[in-house]
């Protein structure tokens, strides 16, 4: 294998996948794709289905997931006569694909002459997929049919001809038909970009050389992944955490992982995890595997995204658990489960390599959906607000404030833009003081905001992490947990399931208040330099009580008035307090 060709071909394939990402991001109608990059594109091996390259603009959650979808699909398509030029397949069935019904995948073969050369896939999040709750996050769903329409693996295009009847079926069953039709057209155009790039590469190197490169790239990535795993001390690392409840029954739900490292190989075993829940807090096996790769990629960022990376890791995901959902289990709350799994991996590996792993991040995507008819336009709107929150601290630094979920790069919509588009208004939007876990390095703070309806609308919220706060590592403390408060009929109230509420009506002037968790702390807070605690107090990141109890510093307030209060730490008294035994 010529090393120059290999390096250049790898770069070129990554570039083609990037171009596919960018094309959809610029052309999509839904803000969730164009604003928050909720999409992914990949090129896959024609016989094994392994990932060859994946775009670097799409979301991490789709890392592994598309490979497993393509692998499932290869079997099904073979039974139906195999791939033919001009065919495009579509599906959103989570048990074959992954995540939730809103994530629609389309897949197309790429032929060189009459030979299948590669498979291309595009995943995009549709703003609405029908079902009981606008936007699709139904916190009380008991089966998948309440969450939206299911698209089994079918042909969207056959021999280059669009199945227009299928598109009409979609648009008739979703709340935002214009957007969905526009997004589907944009996704189909992406393959033109991919084909152009692949054809140019074939013209330059020829099929035989490229096939050798594809095989070699996978082998090299495997070698790279093995080299990282070999640096983790051998051993078995177990970690358990709990979901607050499943959206139906108010009982906590355990999820357990055991990560076993032996030399260059890793085994990830979810034995001990609860059975599939009655509510929507479940996810398919593909999504569970993807969550593990997201966690590993955050720990080892230079691992490439291709099939070889997946080879040295073995999984045990017992059947019929909430991590291996099967029909007709609801999966609309999968983001809560996925956040939990990412943190579990951090919690387990922190025992082996604490210097490389962050403490728990805020852990809940807590999606809030507001929908109704805008009085100005007379049109239906669906607004989706995912939780921002704090990241866990690391050996190197404090945690980030107002971070995005690790499986995502999704932004929070502009407040001014939201008020233009939707019948709502923000009452406040601020850093949640004193919400990061204490530590030598402090967890990032969460965010608090309140959204008021300016016309009647319905709100659903699907969160978790009220009863179980994000944890600290290496002696660091936990963050403040989530809090959701409705303000209706002149009173404040917390939902029965704390962070889950389905289709609550808000009249004009009524509101929902949300406070997201911070991230966990790293290391003993009593080792944090007193000067840093003083700065945290003056900036309002830490409150005076926390400074005294958790950080063991002695402070006095030296000024207030119209300006913000200022504090000064008494260094000598702090040393004495920190030296005293803890009581």
């Amino acid at each position, binding site marked *: 294998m010529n*090393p*120059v060709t290999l*390096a*250049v071909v790898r*770069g*070129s394939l990554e*570039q083609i996948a*990037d171009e596919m990402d960018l*094309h959809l991001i*610029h052309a999509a109608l839904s*803000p969730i794709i*164009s*604003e928050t990059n909720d999409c992914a594109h990949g090129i896959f091996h024609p016989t094994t289905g392994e990932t060859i390259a994946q775009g*670097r603009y799409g979301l*991490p959650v789709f890392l592994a997931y598309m490979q497993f979808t393509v692998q499932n699909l290869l079997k099904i398509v073979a039974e139906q006569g195999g791939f033919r030029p001009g065919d495009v397949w579509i599906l959103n069935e989570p048990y074959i694909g992954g995540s939730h019904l809103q994530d629609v995948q389309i897949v197309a073969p790429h032929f060189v002459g009459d030979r299948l050369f590669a498979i291309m896939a595009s995943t995009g999040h549709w703003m609405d997929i029908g079902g009981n709750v606008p936007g699709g996050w139904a916190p009380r769903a008991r089966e998948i049919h309440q969450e939206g329409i299911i698209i089994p693996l079918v042909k969207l295009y056959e021999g280059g001809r669009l199945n227009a009847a299928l598109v009409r079926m979609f648009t008739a069953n979703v709340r935002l038909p*214009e*957007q969905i039709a*526009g997004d589907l*057209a*944009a996704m189909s*155009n992406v393959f033109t*970009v991919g084909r152009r790039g692949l054809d140019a590469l074939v013209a330059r190197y020829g099929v035989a050389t490229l096939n050798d490169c594809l095989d070699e790239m996978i082998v090299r*990535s*495997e*070698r*790279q992944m093995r*080299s*990282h795993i070999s640096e983790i001390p051998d051993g078995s690392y177990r970690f358990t955490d709990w979901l607050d409840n499943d959206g139906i029954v108010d009982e906590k739900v355990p999820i357990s992982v055991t990560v076993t490292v032996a030399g260059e190989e890793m085994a990830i075993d979810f034995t001990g995890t609860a059975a599939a829940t009655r509510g929507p807090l479940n996810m398919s096996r593909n999504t569970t595997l993807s969550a593990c790769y997201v966690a590993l990629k*955050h720990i080892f*960022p*230079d691992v490439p995204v291709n099939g070889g990376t997946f080879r040295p890791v073995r999984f045990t995901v017992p059947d019929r658990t909430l991590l291996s959902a099967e029909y007709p289990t609801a999966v609309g709350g999968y983001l809560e489960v996925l956040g939990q799994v990412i943190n579990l991996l951090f919690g387990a590996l922190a025992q082996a390599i604490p210097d490389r792993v*962050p403490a728990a991040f805020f852990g809940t995507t807590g999606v809030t959906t507001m929908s109704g008819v805008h009085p100005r336009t007379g049109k239906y709107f669906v607004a989706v607000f*995912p939780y*921002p929150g704090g*990241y866990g601290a690391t050996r*190197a630094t*404090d*945690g*980030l*404030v107002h*971070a*995005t979920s690790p499986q995502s790069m*999704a*932004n929070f919509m*502009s*407040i*001014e*833009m939201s*008020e233009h588009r939707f019948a709502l208004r*923000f009452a*406040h*939007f601020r850093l949640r003081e004193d919400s990061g876990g204490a530590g030598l390095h402090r967890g990032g703070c969460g*965010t608090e905001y309140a959204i008021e309806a300016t016309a009647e609308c319905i709100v659903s919220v699907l969160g978790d992490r009220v009863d179980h706060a994000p944890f600290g590592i290496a002696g660091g403390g936990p963050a403040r947990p989530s809090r959701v408060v409705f303000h209706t009929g002149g009173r404040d109230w917390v939902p029965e399931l704390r962070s889950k509420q389905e289709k609550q009506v808000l009249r004009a002037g009524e509101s929902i208040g949300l406070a997201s968790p911070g991230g966990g702390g790293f290391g003993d807070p009593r080792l944090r330099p007193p000067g840093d605690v003083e700065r945290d107090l003056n*900036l*309002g*990141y830490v409150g005076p009580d926390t400074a005294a109890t958790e950080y063991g510093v002695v402070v006095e307030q030296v000024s207030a008035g*119209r*300006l*913000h209060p*200022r504090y000064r730490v008494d260094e000598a008294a702090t040393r004495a307090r920190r030296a005293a035994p803890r009581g």
Partner: protein
Amino acid sequence: MPGLVGIDVGGTFTDLFYAGDGVRPPVVLKVPSTPHDPSDGLLASLREAGLDPGDIAMLLHGTTIATNALIERRGARTALVTTAGFRDVLELGRRDRPHMYGLTGVHVPLVPRDLRYEVRERMDYTGAVLVELDEAALHDLATALRDGDVESVVVSFLHAYANPAHEMRAKAILAAANPAWEIVASSEVLREYYEFERTSTAVVQGYLQPLVSRYARSLGRRLGEWGFARDVLIMQSNGGVAPLSRLGARAAHIVRSGPAAGVTAAARIAAEAGFSHVITADMGGTSFDVAVVIAGQPKVADLTNLDFRMPLRLPMIDVHTIGAGGGSIAGVDRGGILQVGPRSAGAVPGPVAYRRGGSDPTVTDANLVLGRINPRSPMTGSDAGLDLEGAQHAVAELGARLGLGPEATAEAILAVVNQRMAGRIRLLSVERGLDPQAFVLVAFGGAGPMHGAALIREVGVRAMLVPRFPGVLCAMGCAMADIRFDFSQTVEKPLAELAAETLAAILAAQRREGEAELRRSEAPAARIAATHSADMAYAGQIHALRVPVEAGWTPARMTAAFNETYCAEFGNTLEGIPVVLVNLRTTVTGQRDAAPPAAPAATAASGPPAPAAHRRVHFGTWHRTPIYRRSDLAAGVALHGPAIIEQADTTTVIEPDMVLRVDRHDNLIVELGR
């Protein structure tokens, strides 16, 4: 008649370009920059050039003062006043993280949380007042802040772009409390929605304004002491210049002054050489800057992230940077695949060849091993010349890990770094539906002309142009730019709901504002021109498309123009979905008559000169290659590759299957032979 002088103050060097006055020849030189007071280096360059104040009609200046103040956080102590409930908009940003993978990294906002204050007031998205401004509370706050060490105050209220009344009133109250404060209202800096981006832009302005105003005053004074009393114009990031007297108010507009000047010069030089579509390729020691010029107009970006969570939403020439330069380090990743950059050896330790302690092989080392760089090049400043043996050793060591010989390894390093640069060029041209055959690649910077030949082959660009003075292109760009001011206004309404008169009124107001700004600046402009554009999108889309429009167009005409542009960009239209007008924009330029010739017109040469030397250069195999001095190549000369052209600030590589001609402006034009 006195001439024009362009001076670009960079981090390391201050470059001067004097256009000449018909009697005195042009002057091109570099002196070391003086970061403690950049005007020292600027005056030193004028003295070094032997220029008297009377020789200069106008001084045009590019500066890194704003960029450096942001990077090093050396700006003013700034306070921020916001709508009650929204103090943290600046710190929170839009829910993100610094890198896609890895949850590390922190954010330090330009205004810390204890200098951010709230005041009761609120508008809705139409600009209607929901809560009146609490003037008494603001007055109390101003009084309390007055005794501190705050130098500037930024006011940023929600929906102020729709109705700036509260911001203007707050500004007056603050100014009355302390006339010494520099006060910036978000709506004065940007009349567009997106509260974080607007607040961040206003904060960048407030943070820089005191420093930049001081610099402008001090530079004006020192030039006055030197005896120069004529106009001084400063290069802005949008590719136009603004007068020194207005610089404080334009502080946020000069953060990419130097790169913008380079692109402006490249565009102008290419246009004079007969190319209207240009890709500019500036390759230095650590980075590769690329920009696209269509029909003579550099592409402009609306938003640039200056740092993590520090967006600047002002029009800036869209310069894309990747970590690929002469100092980029070549290595093998854990999978055994060759990688080049983005890690760079920088200036210290630098490439192995520079004898400053570098041990990792770099792109420069590969070029040296292949004979493309003269080992006795003066670039290192070391009398011993470049360390060819050291470079060969480092490259051979890397080659051993790949199973390649030293020359093959060096070629591989170039192939990989060229592929990365070509990929970025392709993303900006081919993938945007532009045919590379219509472009010329203008290569500059120390390493640009060395790699340009490979890039035009890789991307399929028609030709490479190397200007006469590729090392001082930014200084030349200053001397060539027009005076330019940009205006925008968010509309955010379906075009079908808008009247033609409304659109015309907004554009006319923007034009009037620009003309007034030009008059205030008293800068010499021969002609004033205004161009208009509109950002439009299908209802629901986030990413709007910029479409040139004309004053007096009806909403229907604008809709048609949008559909046409959308189809060209994305291959289809979404008929049936209403088109929304997001922003209207106007650019007012004061065009200068006295633009200097890009390079002196030379007389045609009789035939190719004799090479200054021959050297073995590796292009697949070793070729005995003629080496020419740039100064020996007169207009009209034509040569076949392989050839190497050497000049003090760069080396141009002509590959074996390429042809070179020198045009009548003394530019090198390199094309694939047939």
